């Protein structure tokens, strides 16, 4: 019985870390720019294909993990300069335009790589025993990696000058500009970082799921729930959202049939949004 409980706890932790990882890029762009990036799911997917590409060239998964944020960050660079920049202060238009960007990325990947599935092998097969429970190494690693990325992001935002610039720009664009902060550049940095994080998440998730052009869509709604349930614009909120959705999913998945569990978590998210539109952790 303790083994079951322990397994469920680790499962919940693992799922929460996965959801946080996936939602990170979305949260950064939403939180810092107020932009809902509907292309997030497809940037995430592009990260997976970056691994497929890098693995194909070098034969090493970890090169893919390095390449993904660079490649997807570059896509983000183009999208910000070409699209998002021109729609400032028109949030719904940004939403619609990034919907288009997502379609273009998805269909572009289909043109480049074909519509079939690609495989990314688990680079660290095998399990580690945690007490009575054997748990896959790679999933445990993901928990640690997610925690490190969160810590790194927090340090960057709260301890460095670029982070300070971004947060200042987020609060008051004009005053920030009057103090020498280039708001256009700061926005670009925020978007590229968000996109790179989406790519990194895709790369890290690629061994766990099926790599295909439509894979991102599955995660989009879930990532939104994590971001808004916790509260936009706060890393703490993101962690909270991930734990609530991930934990809720694991718990419901254990007791209920998967379809009902799925619906139950969505209902929970809607109810939270209804009563705390700003998120739980604000």
């Amino acid at each position, binding site marked *: 019985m303790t083994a079951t409980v322990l397994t469920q706890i680790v499962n919940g932790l693992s799922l929460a870390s996965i959801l946080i990882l996936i939602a990170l890029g979305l949260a950064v762009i939403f939180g810092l720019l107020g932009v809902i990036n509907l292309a997030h799911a497809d940037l995430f997917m592009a990260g997976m294909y970056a691994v497929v590409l890098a693995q194909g060239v070098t034969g090493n998964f970890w090169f893919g993990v390095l390449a993904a944020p660079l490649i997807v960050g570059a896509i983000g660079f183009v999208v910000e300069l070409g699209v998002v920049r021109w729609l400032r202060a028109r949030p719904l238009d940004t939403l619609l335009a990034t919907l288009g960007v997502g*379609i273009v990325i998805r269909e572009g990947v289909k043109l480049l790589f074909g519509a079939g599935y690609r495989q990314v092998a688990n680079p660290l097969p095998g399990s580690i025993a945690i007490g009575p429970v054997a748990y896959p190494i790679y999933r445990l690693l993901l928990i640690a990696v997610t925690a490190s990325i969160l810590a790194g992001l927090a340090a960057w935002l709260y301890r460095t000058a670029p982070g300070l610039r971004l947060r200042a720009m987020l609060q008051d664009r004009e005053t920030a500009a009057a103090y020498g902060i280039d708001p256009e550049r700061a926005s670009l940095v925020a978007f590229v970082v968000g996109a790179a994080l989406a790519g990194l998440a895709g790369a890290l998730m690629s061994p766990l799921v099926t790599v295909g052009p439509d894979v991102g869509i599955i995660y989009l709604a879930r990532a939104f729930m994590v971001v*808004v349930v916790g509260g936009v614009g706060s890393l703490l909120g993101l962690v909270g959202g991930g734990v609530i959705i991930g934990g809720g999913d694991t718990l419901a998945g254990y007791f209920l049939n998967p379809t009902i569990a799925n619906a139950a978590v969505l209902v929970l998210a809607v109810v939270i949004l209804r009563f705390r539109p700003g998120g739980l952790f604000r």
Partner: protein
Amino acid sequence: MTSVDAPPDAPPGAALAKQRRINLGWSVLPNAVMLALIVAFPFIASDYQVGLMTQFLTFGLLAMSLDLLGDRAGLVSFGHGAWFGLGAYTLALTLERLPGVGGTYLGFLLAASVGGGFAALLGSQLFLGRQRVGGVYFGIVTLAVAAILQLVVMGWSSFTGGSNGLYGFATPELAPGLPLTGTQAPYGLAATVCILIYAGLKWALRSSLGLSLLAARQNSLRAEGIGIPIGRFQLLVFSAAGAIAGIAGALYIPVGFVSPDLFGLTFSTYVIVWMVLGGRGTLIGGFLGAIGLSFLETALSGSFVTLWLLMVGVLLIVVVLVWPRGAMGALGAVTRAIRT
């Protein structure tokens, strides 16, 4: 949190408000041409195309209701297809239990009430609270609600037919001996309902209520300051849009089946694309966008497939960036150019 953002070149609904002043011929002409085309279509097109057009009219009505929601309440639903699905399932389930004329009319009535009622229920929770849930949050909530409904429809197969959808329910009948079979009768019904709803909306939006809606939409802060209850307005518009979407779904029934795909993200995304590319804030733009794009897709997707979607994506970006009022905006620019 209500985000009010309009395309920069014109305030929402401005075209409508101005239209009264502009010389009558120019505002009536496009509508007359549209009307003539809709009436003439069954006489010039093949049966296959009339059947197709019937479906696309229902899509057009759905896009029109989404445009109503966006233009008058500043809300974009990412799950609007779900209301269409609700209407379609409602009529199908009614006809399964009560075939014939009675079931048909009851079903249509129920479809409108279920669509409108569900929107009212959800809207009362979202818009009337201390903190209104609007803007992108409304989009996310509707996305989740559609996903929940889809899971319910898929999971409750004894009632809804599950992933299989529903088949073999009775054919709706408008009057004894006038079943909605073939292509002409369903087309006639769909076309009539579309025209009536469009005319009704045009009329309603020019009434004093419609104008206060417009005022509220254009400056929500000031409107709230002078005591216009924005939350209740949004609730009203959302319920109306939900009811129209429900009717549109019911009109889809002569196709002969309903499936849970109607609740999917893909379908709802399509509705948004139709509205944006057709032209926001005009009602007729989304309607024409739905019909035009659906026809193009049917004609081209066999040969283009991936390229077709790629083009839709590019077009979506370009239209939002440089032509926020879509095809209707382009048309307006052309007519203005001709006139001057």
